[in-house]
């Protein structure tokens, strides 16, 4: 089990291997479909992004609202593939990690290899357990998007698995091959 603190350097990210369990601590940012669309539209217009992506990790999540006294409500990963058409653009901007669940496109994996970014998996549907590893949350961009706004999360020992590493090795392909016809 490896412990990492964000932001992540390219060097550290390139050391990570598919299947490795990692506990992430520090700041991570949330973004899903609508926030990605706006970020890429801003890039197309040459406008500044609301957050500096260099070395950062984006968590694909739209959390539940917190109850009084909680920093955040349930907060598990959403399906990453919906972000695929935008992802190579944000990786070019220095993004080092993504947390989500589900398959990624060949274009995303190519960008990860080229620029040095890693795809972490969190357990889909484990929103209540994962919320406990989030210590603070605040909206930092696009508040009108509600649950799709960009949040800055402070996490402690957030449990993830390296799903696709910078060599393009994919845990989903390998796992499936191993247990086919079991």
């Amino acid at each position: 089990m490896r412990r990492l603190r964000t932001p992540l350097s390219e060097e550290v990210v390139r050391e990570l291997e598919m299947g490795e369990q990692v506990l992430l601590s520090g700041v991570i940012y949330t973004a899903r479909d609508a926030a990605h669309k706006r970020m890429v539209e801003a890039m197309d217009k040459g406008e500044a992004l609301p957050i500096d992506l260099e070395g950062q990790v984006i968590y694909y999540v739209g959390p539940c609202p917190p109850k009084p006294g909680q920093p955040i409500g349930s907060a598990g990963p959403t399906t990453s593939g919906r972000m695929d058409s935008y992802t190579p653009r944000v990786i070019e901007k220095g993004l080092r990690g993504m947390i989500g669940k589900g398959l990624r496109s060949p274009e995303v994996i190519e960008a990860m290899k080229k620029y040095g970014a890693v795809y972490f998996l969190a357990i889909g549907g484990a929103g209540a357990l994962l919320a406990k590893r989030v210590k603070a949350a605040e909206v930092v961009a696009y508040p009108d998007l509600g649950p799709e706004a960009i949040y800055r999360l402070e996490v402690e020992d957030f449990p993830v698995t390296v799903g696709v590493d910078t060599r393009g090795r994919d845990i989903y392909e390998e796992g499936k091959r191993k247990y086919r016809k079991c």
Partner: protein
Amino acid sequence: MMREIDVAEVRDAVEGLCISACYDLPQDVMEALKKAAEKEISDVGRDTINLIIENAETAARERMPICQDTGVTIVFLELGQDVRLVGGDLYEAVNEGVRRGYTNGYLRKSVVDDPFLRRNTKDNTPAVIYTDIVPGDKLRIIVVPKGTGSENMSALKMMTPAQGMEGVKKFVVETVDKAGSNPCPPIIVGVGIGGMMDKAAQIAKKALLRPVGQPNPLPHIAKLESEILEEINKTGIGPQGLGGCVTALAVHIETYPTHIGALPVAVNIQCHAARHAEKTL
């Protein structure tokens, strides 16, 4: 003799059902997950199922949503024909119940007003409501918060009668195989066969409400269910797609008479957070 039900009772029931459905995983789903953990041969797969169980227990104990995707609220109403509804508009009452449930239960509001303009309605309304008129003087309300991770992996195909059971089997298994890790396996696979396009989709969704693993009463359909389940679990996808022998907990098929020239098949996929709650007024 008509029995009167005030729609305010419907509103309050829907509010409570939205919250309990999102916090409390049904007992049959929990049991199916525990059995799956025993059956799974992959260590990672077994650990994953155990974490899924721990998550559901945590959610129930701490009164919080099992999954942050508290979905589009699907509401099935089985309205007795001897019921007279009073006090207002039934569907407005259902939507007001959803509005209150999603607000007071701290559930995520995931509905946008238009498929292209995509403005969040901020209260999870409108619900998707299906009403059946049935004999009797009761109103049964079933609330199903359906997330999009699994819903997006669903599929429908208008097959030909010649393609028959083999064709259906192939289509269902291919749909699940293509979905891979996306719909949060272990999944429950709802299949609707027959009717017309819309009917197949509707019964596929309703098939998800059956207690997990309870076979269809028709022997040839029950046989098809178990054959498809076996094929699905040979894909190797496994819990969360990390590899293993439990990709699906169950396959539930519902059928309906169809046209001489038709074989519509709908596959509705349900993630492991198979949430639903019901109340009869």
